[in-house]
């Protein structure tokens, strides 16, 4: 693996190796010395053109736990606000000797451009590009599902037969796309529930069943119910009449939570709009995996950085 740009590139075996390695990385968090010397002397640059707290901090913690040096680069307050192009930024970072670039960008395909450009020789990790992909989020979601289902016996397991229902703004969601490819590759069956205005054109070609009625989906008792964030920053048209109507039709409120079987996990990639797509009771319930997802994010990103960087270096 040279770059991690999209979960659609991941074969089932590769994905399972990434998840299994993350299991070992998770053990490091319980130790006295929460650090491994593996990536000593390597430099990881967090290149964030879009706001983010949990993803950036998660990558930073992951890189530091592996003893890599971390440089945080936020577009605000950098030369990007003076008009520097992605190419010049990348070449500047290359000249400083970055071994990996973790990039988040509002343009779909930004990570792909960086990886294929030849501007920089570093491994590229896509940390979210526009409405395209967010592969580490999907990996941590799969990891969280697998751990809840199989506990300590998770290693080597796939997600055969697990039913996952993803609800909300699929149109703008890179999380939904990355999860669809990865969960399908791991053997799960995925369903999207959304208003017709928030489903992308051409979705018929995807390996997914689409529904418009959340209550029908809840009555089918899925193993996993993943609520997507309503991305107000991308809502530039009238996709639904107003927030109250969205919450009533597609939000996970207390009544719907009560109708879910106790074994169903409620997931959310964060940050949550409490009261809109998910009620506070649902977000804080025992079924919610939100905080596990954050903790698992560090393990997954350590696994990804390890697999991308450990075998490069002097030899390459």
């Amino acid at each position, binding site marked *: 693996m040279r770059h991690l740009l999209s979960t659609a590139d991941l074969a089932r075996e590769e994905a399972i*190796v990434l998840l299994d*390695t993350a299991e*070992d990385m998770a*053990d490091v968090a319980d130790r006295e010395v929460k650090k491994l*010397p593996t990536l000593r002397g390597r430099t990881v640059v967090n290149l964030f053109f879009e706001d983010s707290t949990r993803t950036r901090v998660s990558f930073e913690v992951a890189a530091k736990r*592996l003893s890599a040096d971390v440089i945080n680069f936020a577009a605000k307050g950098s030369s990007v606000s003076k008009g520097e192009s992605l190419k010049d930024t990348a070449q500047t970072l290359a000249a400083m000797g970055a071994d990996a670039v973790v990039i988040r960008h509002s343009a779909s395909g930004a990570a792909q451009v960086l990886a294929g450009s030849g501007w920089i020789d570093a491994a590229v990790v896509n940390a979210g590009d526009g409405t395209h992909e967010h592969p580490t989020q999907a990996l941590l979601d799969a990891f969280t599902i697998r751990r809840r289902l199989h506990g300590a016996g998770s290693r080597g397991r796939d997600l055969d037969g697990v039913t996952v229902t993803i609800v909300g703004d699929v149109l703008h969601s890179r999380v939904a796309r990355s999860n669809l490819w990865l969960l399908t590759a791991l053997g799960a069956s995925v369903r999207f529930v959304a208003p017709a205005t928030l489903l992308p054109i051409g979705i018929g070609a995807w390996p997914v069943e689409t529904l418009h009625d959340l209550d029908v989906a809840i009555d089918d008792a899925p193993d996993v119910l993943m609520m997507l964030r309503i991305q107000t920053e991308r809502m530039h048209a009238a996709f639904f009449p107003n927030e109250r109507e969205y919450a009533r039709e597609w939000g996970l409120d207390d009544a719907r939570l009560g109708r879910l079987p106790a074994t169903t996990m409620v997931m959310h990639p964060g940050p949550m709009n409490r009261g809109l797509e998910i009620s506070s009771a649902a977000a804080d319930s025992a079924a919610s995996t939100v905080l596990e997802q954050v903790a698992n994010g560090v393990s997954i990103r350590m696994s990804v950085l390890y697999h991308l960087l*450990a*075998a490069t270096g002097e*030899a390459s």
Partner: protein
Amino acid sequence: MVARAVLQAPDITRALTRIAHEIVEQSKGADDLVLLGIPTRGVVLARRLHAILAEIAPGAAEVGALDVTMYRDDLSRQPTRAPAPTQIPAAGIDGRTVVLVDDVLYSGRTIRAALDALSDLGRPTAVRLAVLVDRGHRELPIRADFVGKNLPSSTSERINVHLTEIDERDEVTIE
């Protein structure tokens, strides 16, 4: 080249039994031992040693596994390998005697990595090393305390350890 068997199943059992006795002898009884196998075959050998120890000195030793992948110094020279799980007994390793168990001792670099990994997990009173085969060619000042068989070899030869739990037969071959 044809693989030549140097240790058969009974030889391996005998070597492990002897090592178990030596461990007990050297640690004057064996009341606070932790056997840590280095994946993959070291873990199998550590479990076998533990079973033998349970007969000679019941309740004296605990067994676990110590993965050293993340501590290796040759990661960048090889294709990425997936780490194996590390299992440390619940009581930890602080103040106890750790016996590292591996199948073949060669350059000594795996053991160097294991020593680094141990120091991140706690502070054992003493660390010992038990190996089934010592083939020489050390690159570091490391030696084994308990050796199943010394096997002088040339660097062009390959030593293969087969163990029933993984390879469906017990045998050490050289080719």
